[in-house]
């Protein structure tokens, strides 16, 4: 820790907000120039700045699942491409989950920032490329059993050298995916993002001078660290435990335990995952980067949101994650769902563990799935392959002071849902309905948020679909006496049939929520329901006026009002 009396709190504050603005500008360039709807509509990417040692120094609020992975990512890159082999204008691309990455679709672009010959840090964009080859269009192969099924692995390599494209790397990357034109556009956007980050941070460094800049950044990390220590110090020492489950892995019909033990010791915390199930055969495993990121995510949710988000926040936190388990998977097991499905359940369990001591900073379980549906096919007019990654929104958990938000992205993402009019313009499927699911919010003094249900019909061509989801059996937990949230579900109806069947029944799959390469032909329909959030507190204590309004609005049925809340309310 540097001496607080010598810290220039004013310059530090200004440099902090300026760097955050730089990250935001990187994100806007990325959003406006990228091709995939998962970038430009859903905003599934993040933009950060790191110092020379790979410590996160600033971030903008796009997708939070990626934030905690930054230090590991930079460290693994410079392990393979030493710093003295970097020169101005280089850009490194990387996606390998077994080299510090989060999951294969997540591509990291790293640009070193040199000022007058000195390496001062890195600009980084991390984004989810929809199509990366592998056994299914769209990477989320619910039935993958090794990482090679999940798409191309990209170790850290230079995609630009001294400002020039490395043609060989581009060729290799684009030859291994189904949608080269889209991947090209998205990679260009990710590079445009790091270019802006490099230019703008260089301006900042020149304005303050290298020494002043570095001193203030060091102070800023210390500052966040001391804020985080003060937060942890305020929590009574002790061991706080919680668990949740991933209901199956797509390969075997058994569930996997996520065990979380948070040890608060003075102004530090140890998040220990001992007791977690051994790693799965299927793709629900979390890499070490994901397990770190998820622990950080849970702690950041339960502490003061105004602390500047940088590596300083992570210094008082230790993570214990035994290898070979669901939360620290060994090569070459599959892992694509770990980042979207397992991350949010880990973070939720960290929050759940602390709810006894931090009731006003925690919530009941959210849906904790992105309902990832990926599909591909061939455009009937142009012949070009299309691939789409669509996420769905679920319910947030109830809190000590408010109901859970309905239809909200899970806490490891901050994605927007793709508009129906954009979706149908781009892909040959029709959205037949898109609704909230009444009674899906777990009952409680403050109920869980409602989930959604979407019905899609294939119009012209065969669609090859795959899904990576959860909570079809394992509902979002309520807390302090609150009820569970409604279950998720996926159903298929053939053009010729009239029954809605779960995917295991319709296609003979092991899992309803994780499956690969199902054909949805013209006239066939598929329906996705997401999980509702868990409730907070005894439903009998719910304020009568709120319950009556819920019934009038159709969020809660008169039957549930009577049976669960114990109040007779007539719907209008």
């Amino acid at each position, binding site marked *: 820790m540097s001496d607080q009396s010598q810290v220039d709190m004013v310059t530090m504050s200004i440099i902090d907000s300026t760097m955050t603005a730089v990250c935001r500008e990187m994100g806007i360039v990325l959003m406006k120039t990228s091709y995939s709807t998962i970038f430009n509509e859903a905003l599934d990417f993040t933009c950060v700045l790191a110092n020379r040692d790979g410590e996160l120094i600033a971030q903008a609020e796009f997708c939070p699942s990626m934030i905690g992975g930054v230090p590991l990512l930079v460290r693994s890159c410079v392990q393979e491409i030493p710093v003295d082999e970097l020169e101005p204008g280089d850009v490194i691309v990387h996606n390998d989950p077994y080299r510090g990455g989060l999951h294969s679709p997540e591509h990291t672009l790293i640009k070193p920032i040199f000022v007058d010959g000195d390496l001062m840090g890195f600009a980084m964009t991390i984004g989810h490329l929809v199509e990366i080859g592998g056994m299914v269009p769209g990477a989320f192969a619910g039935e993958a059993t090794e990482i090679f099924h999940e798409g191309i692995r990209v170790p850290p390599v230079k995609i630009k050298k001294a400002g020039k494209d490395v043609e060989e790397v581009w060729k290799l990357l684009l030859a291994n995916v189904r949608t080269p034109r889209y991947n090209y556009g998205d990679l260009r956007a990710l*590079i445009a993002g790091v270019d802006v980050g490099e230019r703008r941070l260089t301006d900042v460094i020149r304005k303050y001078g290298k020494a002043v800049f570095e001193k203030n950044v060091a102070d800023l990390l210390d*500052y966040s660290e001391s804020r985080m220590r003060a937060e942890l110090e305020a929590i009574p020492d002790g061991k706080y435990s919680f668990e949740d489950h991933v209901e199956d892995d797509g390969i075997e019909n058994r569930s996997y335990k996520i065990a979380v033990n948070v040890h608060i010791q003075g102004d530090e915390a140890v998040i220990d995952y001992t007791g977690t199930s051994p790693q799965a055969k299927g793709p629900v495993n979390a890499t070490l980067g994901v397990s770190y990121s998820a622990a950080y995510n849970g702690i950041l949710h339960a502490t003061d949101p105004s602390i500047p988000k940088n590596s300083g926040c992570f210094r008082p936190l230790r993570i214990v994650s035994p290898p070979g388990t669901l939360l620290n998977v060994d090569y070459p097991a599959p892992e694509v769902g770990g980042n979207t499905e397992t991350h949010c359940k880990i973070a939720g369990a960290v929050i759940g563990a602390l709810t006894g001591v931090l009731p006003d900073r925690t919530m009941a379980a959210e849906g904790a799935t992105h309902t990832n549906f990926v599909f591909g096919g061939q455009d009937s007019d142009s012949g070009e392959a299309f691939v789409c990654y669509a996420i769905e929104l679920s319910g947030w958990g109830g*809190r000590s002071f408010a109901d859970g938000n309905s239809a909200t*992205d899970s806490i490891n993402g901050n994605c927007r849902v793709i508009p129906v009019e954009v979706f*149908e*313009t781009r892909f040959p499927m029709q959205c037949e309905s*898109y*609704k909230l699911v009444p009674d899906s919010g777990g009952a409680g003094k403050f109920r869980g948020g409602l989930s959604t249900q979407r019905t899609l019909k294939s119009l012209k061509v065969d669609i090859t679909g795959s899904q990576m989801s959860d909570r079809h059996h394992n509902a979002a937990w309520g807390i302090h006496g609150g009820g569970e949230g409604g279950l998720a579900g996926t159903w298929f109806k053939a053009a010729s049939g009239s029954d809605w069947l779960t995917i295991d029944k319709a296609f003979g799959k092991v899992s309803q929520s994780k499956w690969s390469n199902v054909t949805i032909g013209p006239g066939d329909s598929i329906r996705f329901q997401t999980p509702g959030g868990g409730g907070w507190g005894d439903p009998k204590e719910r304020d009568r006026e709120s319950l009556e309004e819920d019934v009038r609005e159709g969020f809660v049925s008169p039957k549930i009002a009577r049976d669960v809340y114990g109040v007779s309310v007539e719907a209008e």
Partner: protein
Amino acid sequence: MAGYLVGVDVGGTFTDFVSYNGETRKIEVWKNLSTPSDPNDGILKGLGRFEDPASIRNIRLGTTIATNAILERKGAVVAYVTTDGFRDVPFIQRGNRRGHYDITWVKAKPLVKRRHSYEVNERVMADGSVSEPLDEAGVREIAAAIKAEPEIEAVAVNLLFSYVTPDHEQRVREIFAEEIPDLPVSISYDVLPKWKEYERASTTIADAYVKPIVSSHVNRLRERIANAGITEQIVIIKSNGGEMTLEAAARSPIQMTVSGPTGGVIAGRQIASLVDIKDLVTLDMGGTSTDCAAIVGGRENFTTDFDIEFGLPIQIPMIDIRTIGAGGGSIGWIDKGGMLRVGPESAGAMPGPACYGRGGERATVTDANVVLGRINPENFLGGDMGLDVEAAHAAMAQLADALGRSKDETALAIIQIANNNMVGALRTVLVERGLDPRDFTLCGFGGAGPLHVADLMVEAGIPSGLVPNYPGQFSAFGFIMTDARVDAQRTIQLTSNNFDLDRANQALTLLVESGISDLNKQGYTERLQVTRSVELRYAGQNYELEVPIATESLDAAGAKAVWQSFHDLHQARFGFNIPGEVIEVITLKATVVSLAEKPELPEIETGGETPEPVSVRRVVFEDGEHETPIYDRSTLTSGQTIAGPAVVEEPVSVTVLRPEQRMTIDPWGNLLIGEIAGGA
């Protein structure tokens, strides 16, 4: 031109007035307190200044009535009618959160109840074809259901893909006109004919939500103005900076959501043209917020990207103004870790900054300016309001003790942090759009803008500054210089490799005709000026860049030039382009303007090279304190030069000049600073 032209800006605290006498070229400004319970009271009171009401030729009004109705949730009970299967779209929204890691966030509630949402059987597809015809009997049943709910006051209709094929929406409106003729109906095709169903729903519902309140407001205004014997020539300023008649405002009230702040941008544009500056950036700094906008090549920028609160978009054509929650009233505070922060909490008008002496105990940006000697406590609001200097010092001392710094250092730090927040806003309108601050002049107004112009020029790398006349009433001043303006736009799906010239030209012609007819209906028939443009992107992207179309219609060569302009613009804006890539056409736009006569601004007297200061006092700058000459703006004459440090005072504002800066007075009395004044 005989008679007075009057601009009226109804703000939260004050209603500002600016009058221009066409014969004498004399401009007068005044203000009185706003009257929120009925804003018309404040308007009529201010207009009472004219001895002969008939001498008012034309009134142009900017008002926040529509915005306030939404922000305070005081609008109408709205029925929402949409395609079967989609009534929950306004409740689901887009699903992203306001920020990360914030467990306290509560999602915005839509301006409609779910129990007042109705679904109609019909379906239009993405290509505009009808896959299910409109169930007219079903529409009549919905009308009956709405009629049975006496609390419903307005109806919003939003059907999927209506921006491609509007027939179903238009037919629903016809049926409602027969069945429920007393209820105003907003259809999304009229309000926002663009894709993305949630954004269009939110905007259309907001239009219906404010319609009854705006109608009754403008009807009462028309009546009271007529009773007072004042002109019938009264118009309302739209969010796009154009004017519209009261009838048009009642029909399409959502157009006036961002009415007020546009005045400052229009005034800025006129001043830029007067002074012969092409690129100007406006900084309108008030008590609680600051608005920034860029004028590039003599034209303001437009956008449709606006959330009235997080998650509630209102996507109407508007002048692209960025607002941040930092102003003179922003409070300085020390966070848990000992870091000094400024805002977003504001002391507002009550209690106001500590120096207002109304019980405020926390140091604000205004208090910092008082402590540093930049604001003269004797001359605040022209001396109408005495300032409590001791209270400002006491508030600053508290912060200073906690920081372990002197009061002056603490006050300077507050100014620095507040300025950095404003530099952030300036960046979003300049650097983030690929505009170079070094080409710009910073035009500061609003009560607090002139105090910060000099510092902000340095911090944002903008070489020149300008403080116009009437900085405290600059928006109302802008209103006397507006034109009537209609922005017509329509989503059309075409691509560069398969471009249907006839279809594009037909659509353009229709847009121009609809714009002209809209203006004609409002009585604007003369000096019409038409501009056309197209929004483009690479096939696959989702955000567009706007490229002007220079000719009345496109031919093959013209289209080719448009594609090339897009590649060039993409390179300039984002640092790369993709030659040879297919370009998608998304929206065609036509803007029709009826140019109004502009006031000829009076020139001030010439004389004397160096003005005489009225006093000298201690003012603190970053490099220390200076015995600083103080000037009275009303005594300055054209051509005079002032070397910094200096302070120029006028009734509603103060302009500060840094030690190294130079200022000149131009023929109209504008204060020019820095490069534009021949200095650093």
